[in-house]
């Protein structure tokens, strides 16, 4: 009689425990990564040039992807805005400056990071996850090596740096594509379009803060998902999916939080 509620209670309890366990793990990975990066980085015996290799894997191999997608988004945004502004009053002169502001403040870093969350997040989780299920993580521990230090910390450094760099490239691609769209479809003079007068230093600071935060979040979330992979190859697939969703979601939440903080501190000055 009391079987059903008890069963659902047990399953609820088990789920809560799982969640608590997962969150504890995330905190542990994040703390391990940050402390490994700040305090003990130079003590480890990591293979030489590991950070450079990760920077290549994360940066160079995402460059084309980021520039293409951001370029298309730039085209679409400028196209839409021009359509709108020409409908009401002719505000085409303002479009470029507004676009630059939005690009620096939000769209550049956030969209770049969304793209990196899919590509880099998936890559890191797949790599670490497949190491987990093939017991390579245990093999590391057998040699008294800490997996977080050995695997996540170099990716952390590389990803923070590369997210900032790729954001800048992405912004440039987006801006250029937007300018071309404006010129060919709406006859906006490039000199009018490429106008930085509405970009304040505060915008740059805020945008770059976002890039750094995203760059830090992606490897931590993805590495955490990879280390939690269980079972066989399907476990790796699940970890990869979780990493893509988790790091994309982390990007959106961080964007919201940092934007809100910016709004509170700078207010209408933004």
């Amino acid at each position, binding site marked *: 009689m009391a079987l059903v509620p008890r069963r659902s209670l047990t399953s609820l309890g088990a789920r809560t425990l799982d969640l608590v366990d997962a969150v504890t793990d995330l905190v542990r990975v994040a703390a391990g990564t940050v402390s490994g990066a700040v305090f003990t980085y130079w003590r480890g015996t990591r293979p030489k040039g590991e950070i450079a290799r990760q920077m290549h894997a994360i940066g160079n191999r995402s460059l084309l992807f980021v520039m293409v997608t951001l370029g298309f988004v730039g085209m679409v945004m400028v196209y839409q805005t021009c359509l709108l502004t020409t409908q009401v009053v002719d505000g085409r002169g303002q479009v470029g400056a507004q676009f630059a502001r939005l690009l620096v403040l939000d769209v550049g870093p956030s969209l770049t990071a969304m793209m990196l969350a899919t590509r880099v997040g998936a890559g890191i989780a797949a790599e670490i996850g497949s190491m987990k299920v093939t*017991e*390579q993580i245990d093999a590391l521990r*057998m*040699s008294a090596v800490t997996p977080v230090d050995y695997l996540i910390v170099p990716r952390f450094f590389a990803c923070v740096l590369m997210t900032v760099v790729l954001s800048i490239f992405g912004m440039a691609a987006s801006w250029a594509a937007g300018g071309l769209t404006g010129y060919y479809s709406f006859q906006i003079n490039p000199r009018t379009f490429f106008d930085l007068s509405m970009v304040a230093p505060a915008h740059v600071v805020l945008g770059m803060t976002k890039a750094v935060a995203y760059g830090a979040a992606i490897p931590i979330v993805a590495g955490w*998902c990879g280390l939690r992979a269980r079972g066989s190859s399907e*476990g790796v697939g699940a970890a990869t999916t979780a990493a893509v969703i*988790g790091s994309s979601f982390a990007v959106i939440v961080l964007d919201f939080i940092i934007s809100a903080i910016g709004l509170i501190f700078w207010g209408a000055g933004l």
Partner: protein
Amino acid sequence: MTAQRDGDAGGGAAVELQGVTVGFVSRRVLTGVTLRVPRGGRLGIIGPAAGGKSVLLKVIAGLLRPDAGAVRVLGHDLAAAREREVAAVRRRVGMLFQNYALFDFLSVGDNVAFPLVHGGAPPEGIEARVAARLRGVGLAGSERKLPSELSGGMKKRVGIARATVARPELALYDEPTAGLDPVTTSKIYDLLRADQAETGGTCVVVSSDVAAVAGFADTIAMLHDGRVRWVGPAAALFDADDPLVRSFARGEEREGAAVLARAVAIEPPGAGVWS
């Protein structure tokens, strides 16, 4: 002579397990396992699939902590030790994983050198030791290859080379011959025997190939349902008093069916955080 090394009070035992119990979420994997392996001994662990053999090996390696019971390995209590102390013990233990667990981003040479590099060995001697070890397993000169270029039997031997390069006092082998043909199987066991003769260390082998492991080990333990069902000299295995053990070893159906009449519950796949 070797028994008192490193404050070893275990009376010459390399591994001593006392009432070890391990449970995952809702399922007991090991229940009250008590085992003792003397230094220089060769223990073979057999038993039906998912009977807890690999988990037991990971407990001995200090990769898993038991929920209850005492684990003394090379004189250290691993169940109570802090992670740093366990890591120090692990440096004296070598392990071959079931699917080799070679680092696929490192070359064969770097894989074998890994325990030396991270075990604080002087860098100048490493290259020579790796070359010597690879020669020992019959893979001389393949330092620069990547694991993905090797066949299963070769990967196994690289795994053995990596597990034994630091001359561990305790070597753990998880299914060293699974899926290999009979000739390759006996070549692998020849290799393990030669290694042990050279280092005088202790060996623990988990295998489902009962006949082959019985030919290698001096003592056999059978795990069934997470408990030690039988321990004895390898020679006595096929005539054990316990009918279940005997028929399992011989592959007879009648009593052995009891071993199988038990489904193994594993967590449902894909239960991730976000799904």
